[in-house]
Every structure is written in C-alpha cells, then in structure tokens.
C-alpha cells in the first residue's frame, strides 16, 4: 500500500513535485501510525514513535507549503490539481472508500496541524476502516471539530445542483426537497443570471479549490480583522477587537457559559436538572480538552468554580462525577502526552487541570511519564504535581512503582513520606512491592506511629524481618514494636536463640533487645537475661553479642532492667567483658 504515482510527475513544477513527495511521506507515516495503533495500546512506545514520525512528516510538509489539499477517490487520494496519487490501496474497503462513500471529496491539511489533531484524525480513520462499525464519515469529521484539518463533503444543495446520487440528498425530507425545488424553480425564472457564469459567478468547483485563506491571511484576519474592519476608524476597530474576544477566548466565551451553567446549579435545581447541567459542563470541558489549547479547560473550570460556594453538596458531587465520566482514558492520554511534550506554559496548566479534576487515571499516567527520558524542567513539574496529589493519598501510584526506575521510585516514596499521614495506605502498600529495600526502610520510618493494627503488621512487616539488609530488618523490628507490641515476644524472642543473629550489626541487635525489654514482658526479659548471661567458655562472637545486647539496654532504664544487669554483673561465671558492659550501663541508668 505504498504511495505511488499514476502519471508522469515530471510534468509538475519542482515545487509541486516536492509537495507531492512530502505529502506521500505524510500519508505513509500516517498509515504506519494507524497500523501501530491497531496493534498496540495507546501510549505504547511503538505508537508514540509512529506518531512522532507522522508529525515530523507534516512538519516537513508545512515548511514547504502552508496547506496540502487532496482529492478523495474510492481507493486513493490525489494531490488536488494533479492526477498524482498521494496514497492508494488495493484493499476493497479502506478509509478513502468510507470517506468518499459518505460524500467527502476534499481534505485540507493546514499548516499548524500538530500531534493532537493527527492522533484525533487517526482515530477517525481507524473507526472508518473497521468494516463492522457503521460510522458516517462526514458526521465523524464534523464531530472531531478539527482546527487545522478541513474537509468538503457533498451537502444536499451540492448533490442536487450537480445531479449526484449521494446520501446528502437525504438531509432533507421529501416534502422539504419538493418545496425547495419549487422555490428554486421560481427563483431561476425570476433571476436569469442565477445559473449563468457571468463575470462574477465562480463555479463551486473553483471556489473549493481557492477558498481557503493562506495562513498569513488567516492570521492577519484573526489578529486585526477583515478589510472592512480595517477601513473603520481606529477607535471603532479597538471596540470591535474587544467584542471579538467574546468568540475568541475561553475567558470570554466558554467561561461565560460555564458561569451561566454554574449559576443554574447554584439556584437549587432538582435532581434531573442538576444531572443535565453537570453533564453539559462536562461536555464543554471535554471539548476544550480536545481543542487546540487543552490547558484552557482549567480557565473554564475556574469560572465554574467561582459559583462552587453556592452549590448544594449533591450538585457538587454530580458535577465531579460528570467530569470524571466524560474524561475518557483516551482523552486523558492525549492530555498527558502534552505534559511530556509541551512548553511550561501549556504543561503546567494541564497538570493543574488534572489535579483539579482529582483524576486518578490522569495522575497514574503522569507518574508513568517518569519512565521516559524527560527534560529536567518537565521532571520538576511532574514532581511538584505529585507533591500536590500526595495530599489525596497517591493511591494511583502503587502499581506504577514497580516499573519506575530506582531514582524515580525513590523520589515518589520520598514525596509520600513527606505527605504522611495522607499517604499511609500508599506506603503500606509499597512494602511488599519490588522496590529497593532502602525505600522500604524510609516507608517504615514514615509509618512509625501510624500502624492500624497487629494484623497489618503481620501482613506487611513480618516478612521484612528476614529481609536481605540489616537496615530493613532493623526498621521492621522497630515497626513490630510500635505497631504490634503484643506480638513482640512471640515474633522476636526466637532471634536471641539463633546463633546467626549474634553476628548481626549492633543497631539490629539493639532493636530486637530493646523491643523485647520494653514490650516482651517478664518472659522477654528472661530471654534477654539468658542471652547475655553467657559463660566463660563462650566463643568470642557469643561474648560480643552479649556485650552489644547489654549496651542496648541503656535505652530501657527501668528498675527491672537494672536488677537484671546487677545480677549478671555479679555472676562470676560471666565473661569479664560482659560484666564490664553491665557495670557501664548500670552507671548510666543509675
């Protein structure tokens, strides 16, 4: 299905030949993007790469020309004004077939076409290409509401006037067609010039070929107005320029509407009306999200929010639900892609928008971006976003932790630790995950005073007592002491009888001994006494362990501990180093 030529392209001017070459590249890359999107899920690197290539191809095209117009035939597209194919296929049904079947005959790709719209266009084409889906191509293109992609489709007037069989004729009922036909006949009788192509009567065909304004013309008109406007006095031009904002800026258009709808919500409407209005607000927001400047949806939401104080709780809930329901995963995906690619002025409002929407899916996807190579500034913005989201618990981040590179996972855990106790569940949930043990140590430290019950300790902490690193075992021991003191003796006492434990670093021994001394009750103390009352013939590691254990008890200055130490100190069968340690501790704890 490669782009091919039907005629001799040498007959074209050099400029047109280059346009043809670049146009073919656009359609080739577009096709590869469609194939990738068919085979892989949204956001997959293969899809993203294919989209990057398509965007590059269009960028190259628009460096050469500010628009490309293609004529659609049943199974191919041709560069308008030539017979040269830009793309063709031998498949019996394809998107060209579907588009031309539904009356679309020209597609205009305009300079400024970017990733978002290319992806949206791809989605439309994919829907059309799936035979089983009965989609009207014209309606699908209308609904997509493109800014840099225009099309011409047969409408009821064109089809009737040109004598073409087309579905467009059905846009009017039989009675309407009859009435229009009769009126048109009378008009033709009264106005002989209606059909006659005198000096001024451009044909519809010529109009479609020439109608679109060049990018510079369009920009000038958007900025300054038309010639008629520029013929007016400067003061009038200024006044009109201000009025024009009413249809140009979100602040003056959609936000105004948002306020109107929010005003209805604030007037104590019934349940049905609340639902309708909330849904309409969500519809507008989705339109903005899918538009050229998705971040502007935030401006709209802010305008709605100015009325928030007057809403009943029910209205506020309905609004939040509607917003979440309307923001599909695909829409979120396209927003999140902007976060990775866009400039700060666009990226930051999008992140604020996702935060305002309290979107779990959006937050999850933003976190997923950290798996990619990002610029420092983008990364900083994402961490700032996560810090904000942490106040809602970071529940979305759990699964993502497994796949994040260590450095990024560490920063996420740090954010969670700082945001305790809101992130308690996230941190508890991170303990059994495949993340570095040092991160688990941080999590345990942050959770120190926030354990819910001993069941939670059993499930999440006890497995860590046998962790690979001493630091984690130590932190887990402390967590057992804090979170499940009633379990201390049953869980830790056995360690004192394990010779391997004697070799452990001092902090680990200290954690076990102090936990038993504090929470193990009399039996715990007896076990400690037995462990430190080693005999003269004991090996050096045993003696060293006993000394370390004794010195740990300085942190438990109770009379019972003092009695225990005095007793060991007085025992001539205990090695001198251990008895000395007992004396040292006794001096400290009095």
């Amino acid at each position, binding site marked *: 299905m490669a782009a091919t030529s039907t005629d001799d392209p040498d007959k074209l001017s050099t400029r047109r030949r280059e346009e043809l070459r670049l146009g073919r590249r656009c359609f080739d890359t577009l096709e590869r993007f469609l194939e990738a999107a068919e085979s892989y899920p949204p956001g997959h690197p293969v899809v993203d790469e294919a989209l990057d290539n398509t965007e590059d191809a269009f960028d190259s095209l628009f460096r050469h020309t500010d628009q490309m117009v293609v004529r659609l035939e049943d199974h191919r597209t041709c560069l308008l004004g030539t017979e040269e194919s830009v793309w063709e296929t031998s498949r019996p049904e394809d998107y060209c077939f579907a588009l031309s079947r539904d009356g679309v005959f020209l597609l205009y790709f305009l300079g400024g076409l970017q990733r978002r719209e290319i992806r949206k266009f791809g989605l439309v084409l994919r829907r059309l290409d799936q035979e089983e889906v009965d989609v009207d191509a014209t309606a699908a293109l209308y609904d997509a509401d493109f800014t840099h992609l225009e099309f011409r489709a047969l409408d009821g007037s064109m089809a009737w006037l040109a004598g073409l069989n087309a579905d467009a004729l059905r846009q009017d009922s039989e009675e309407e067609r009859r009435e229009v036909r009769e009126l048109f006949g009378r008009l033709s009788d009264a106005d*002989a010039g209606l059909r006659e192509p005198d000096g*001024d009567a451009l044909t519809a065909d010529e109009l479609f070929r020439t109608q679109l304004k060049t990018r510079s013309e369009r920009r000038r008109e958007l900025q300054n107005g038309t010639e008629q406007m520029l013929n007016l006095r400067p003061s009038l031009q200024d006044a009109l320029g201000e009025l024009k904002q009413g*249809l140009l800026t979100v602040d003056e258009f959609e936000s105004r509407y948002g306020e109107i709808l929010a005003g209805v919500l604030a007037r104590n409407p019934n349940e049905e009306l609340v639902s309708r209005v909330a849904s309409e607000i969500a519809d507008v927001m989705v339109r903005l999200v899918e538009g050229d400047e998705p971040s502007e949806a935030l401006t709209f939401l802010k305008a709605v929010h100015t009325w928030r104080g007057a809403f009943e709780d029910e209205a506020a809930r309905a609004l939040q639900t509607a917003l979440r329901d309307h923001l599909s995963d695909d829409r979120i995906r396209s927003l999140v892609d902007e976060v990775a690619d866009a400039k700060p002025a666009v990226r930051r409002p999008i992140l604020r928008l996702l935060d305002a929407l309290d979107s779990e899916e959006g937050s999850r996807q933003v976190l997923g971006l950290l798996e990619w190579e990002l610029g420092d500034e983008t990364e900083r913005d994402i961490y700032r976003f996560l810090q904000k989201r942490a106040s809602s618990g970071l529940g979305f981040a759990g699964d993502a932790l497994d796949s994040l590179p260590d450095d990024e996972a560490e920063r996420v855990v740090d954010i969670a630790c700082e945001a305790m106790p809101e992130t308690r569940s996230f941190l508890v949930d991170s303990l059994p995950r495949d993340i570095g043990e040092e991160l688990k140590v941080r999590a345990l430290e942050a959770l120190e005073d926030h354990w819910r019950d001993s069941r939670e300790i059993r499930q999440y902490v006890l497995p860590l007592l046998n962790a690979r690193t001493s630091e984690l075992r130590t932190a887990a021991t402390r967590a057992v002491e804090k979170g499940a003191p009633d379990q201390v003796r049953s869980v830790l006492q056995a360690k004192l009888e394990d010779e391997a434990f004697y070799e452990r670093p001092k902090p680990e021994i200290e954690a076990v001994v102090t936990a038993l001394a504090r929470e193990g009750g009399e039996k715990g103390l007896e076990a400690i006494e037995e462990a430190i009352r080693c005999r003269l013939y004991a090996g050096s590691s045993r003696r060293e362990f006993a000394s370390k254990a004794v010195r740990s008890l300085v942190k438990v200055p109770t009379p019972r501990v003092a009695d225990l130490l005095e007793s060991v100190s007085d025992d001539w069968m205990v090695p001198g180093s251990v008895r000395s340690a007992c004396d040292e501790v006794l001096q400290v704890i009095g």
Partner: protein
Amino acid sequence: MDDDRSTGPAPGDSSIPTDDQGATDPSDPQRFGEAFFDAVYRMLKVGSIFESDQEQTRNAVDDFRSFARKSLADTSLRALSFGIRGEFASVNGHTIRLSQQDQRRLRELRELFADAEIRTLSFGRNLTADELVELLDELREIRNADEEQRLEGFETSHLEYDSGSPDRDVLEALGEVTVREYSAHLYLRLAVKVGRLHERIEEESDTTADLPTLRRIVDRIAELFDGDRFDILRLPTTDLLEAGPALHSVNTAIYSMLMIDRLGLRPGRVGASGLAILLRDVDRTRGVDLADPAEAGAPNERLATANARAVARVSGRLDGSPASSLRAILLHERGIELERTIGPPFYKRERRVHVVRRAADIARTYDRLLAGSDGNEPRDPSTAIEALKRRGDSELDPALVELFVETMGDYPVGTTVELSSGERARVVGPPAAESASDRPHIRLLERDGQPVVDLGDPNYQRASIDRAVAEGEEPTEADDSGDDLFLLD
C-alpha cells in the same frame, strides 16, 4: 455486462429470495438496499442475456415486479430508486454497504449504466411488466450497438431515469454549479427547514430540530462568507418566501453571521453564531420566554432568576457545542441593556453583553426595517441602512453598525438604484473590500442579458450611483452621454 457466471445468477435464475420478509421493508435502508440491489441486478443481468420474448426474461420481470410491489405496499414512498456513483450503489438515496461479491456485481451494472449514460432508475408504484421489458430491450440494444448510444427519449409512466455518467467525478460535476445558485439553494433549504420547524412547534407536533443539517447549512454559508462570497445576501430581499417569524429568524442569522465573519473569526464560530440565533428563535417560539418579557428591565435578581430559568428549560437540548453555549448566552443576557456591564447576579465578574447578542440586535432591526413591522411600511435597503445608522447612536452597538454598513455598502444588496446615466440597476453584491462603500456590484436592468458589473472595477470608474429609487418610481430622463458610460475603454 459480462456474462460472468461466477458472480451472477445462473442464466434464467432470476428468483429473488423471499424467505426473508424483512428484506422487502424499505424502513431498514441497509437490509432493504442489499435485497433491492440483488433484485435489480438479477433482472438486468437476465435481461442482458436473454431476449424479451424468452421465458427467463418474463420470469425475471415478474419476480422484480412482485418484489417492488411488496416493498411499496406499506410505505409512503412513491417509487424505489437505484443509483450508481462510482463504486457506490444507492437505494432510495441511501448509499448501501455491499459485500465483496456484490461490489463486483456493481461494477457490471456500472458498465451497463455507463453505456446507457444513466445514473439512476426509479421504479414507480404501478410499474408494468411491459415497461420493464421495454427498458431491458433498450439497454440490450445499446449494449449490442456498434456505435455509441445512450438512453434517450425513453418514456414510460412508472419508470424514470436520470441521465449522466455513473462515473462522474464530484469536482467535475460541481464544476457546473455556480456559487450564486449554490448560495441560493442553501438559503432556500435553510428557510424551508426553519419554516417547517416553526410550523411544527406551533402545531405542537414534532418539535425536534434537525440540528446536524441546520449546522451543515450554516457552516457552508459561513465558509462562503469566509471566502468573501456574499451572493446569499441577494436572497433576503427577494419576495420569494412568505414573511414571518421563521424567515425573519433566518435573515437575522445570516446578517449576524456576516458581521461576525467580518470581525475576522473562523467559519466554525461564525456558523455556531448563526445556528445559535436560529435556535434562540426556536426557543422563543417554543415558549421558553413566556411570562418573562415583563422581566426585562426588572431588578437584577428577578431578571437573572428568570433568565436562569429559561436556560434551565432548554438544558435538555444543549450538547456542549459552541452553538449550545451561544444559545444559552443569548437567553441569559436577554433583557439587559447593551451599554450596561453585567456583574452579579448574572456573572461573578463584570462582563459586557456578548457580541452575538449585539450582532443579532442589528440584524433583527435591519430585517424588520426591510420587512416592515409595528405598523411601519417596508423600507428599501438603502433607507433601512440610513435608519440603522441613526439607531447605532442609541439602541444598537455603534461599532458593529459601522462594520455592517461598511460591509453592506451605502446601497445594500436588493436596492434599486439610478445611475448617473439615468439607467436603472439593482444592487446584487456588496462593494469589494477594497472598493468605496458606494460602489457595489450591480445588475444593469435595462441592458440585454442584464449583465452584472462591479462598480469598484477601475473600468467603470466613470459610472456612479446617483440615488436609490423606490419600487415603481418613474425613471428620470436619461443622460445623453449615458450609453458610453460602461464601455470598457
């Protein structure tokens, strides 16, 4: 048509599967379309192979008639139509999706249609076997002729056809349509659609607007304006349609779109503005405004509540589109004087009345001046423009009025004028952007063929408009030198 046994029925096998009763129900366009396509194919295929006096042909014709009769029995359709455009087959105007096998069959039929230069066949209710046989004979003759022939002069009472190539390219076909007639057709369709919608609302029958089509029509008009094509402005000044709220609404939408377009906005926003005005008027006819006019000028809170209630009433018809937004904005800001800024309780921050409401006010006023209202006589366009200019100082937005006047010119479309030569002319298009406001496009009413000229064209610099003349006013005596005024020297 090739005698391809692998894709067609066996010779003589014209029987149409009738076990699927639903297949003869035209209310399911796709299912019916497939069955009807099959019926047409079988008959034409058999007819292309066998002579009309052979049994196979007679059977094929009878089977087809039986199918058509059954299909038409329970519908209001007067005829069943079958058309071909390139690779597509349409049945009763619906393009049908065909299987790969049927797509191959369609290519056979397309050859047959191309030979005869026909695009569509329509089979009426009381179609007779003889009519079908006659058609098959004609087609067979054309097919077997040594020289190129076409179906010409074939006339029967219940069988019609459209001439033309089934392979006709869309752009080629559109090449024969002028923008002027396209604009006129769009206008008439809009007027008819909106008129019928208002009628239905008044009769309290179906009040659903055909929004997709209305939107397409206004979008097309917006695109024409964007391309600096103003041909449609001729239509509101004709007396072709009966004046009334619906026509007034259509004209208001068109003049408003013109102003919005001339501000330099994209066609999408221009179309949305027009559609919003149409829908606002539909809301008015539906009674959304009932009991509320008295609220105009009422204390803020009462007016804001009344307007919010009106928005709530239409909330079920909003769809998140820009036109929806504008429709609600127009409702929310009704009754508010233009010069006021609007703050609480309407909006949290101070805003000015929206531009679409301002444009609609001007458009409404202009159209009312033309049509005559409140006991006033209809005015001609140039007098209406003068009146509009005067109101621009008080009731209407002065800057937008200036823009409207600048666009329409001193002699708006529809004005009958007397030229310096004494000749009469009718203004048919506004002045080009670069031309002076008193140099519009005119039709010379007293010349052969009534040619149209652009007075802004330097070739006509010696010509000028002396004055607007009222309908039926006697012409002044012609200037002796007048005849030379328009010579292209």
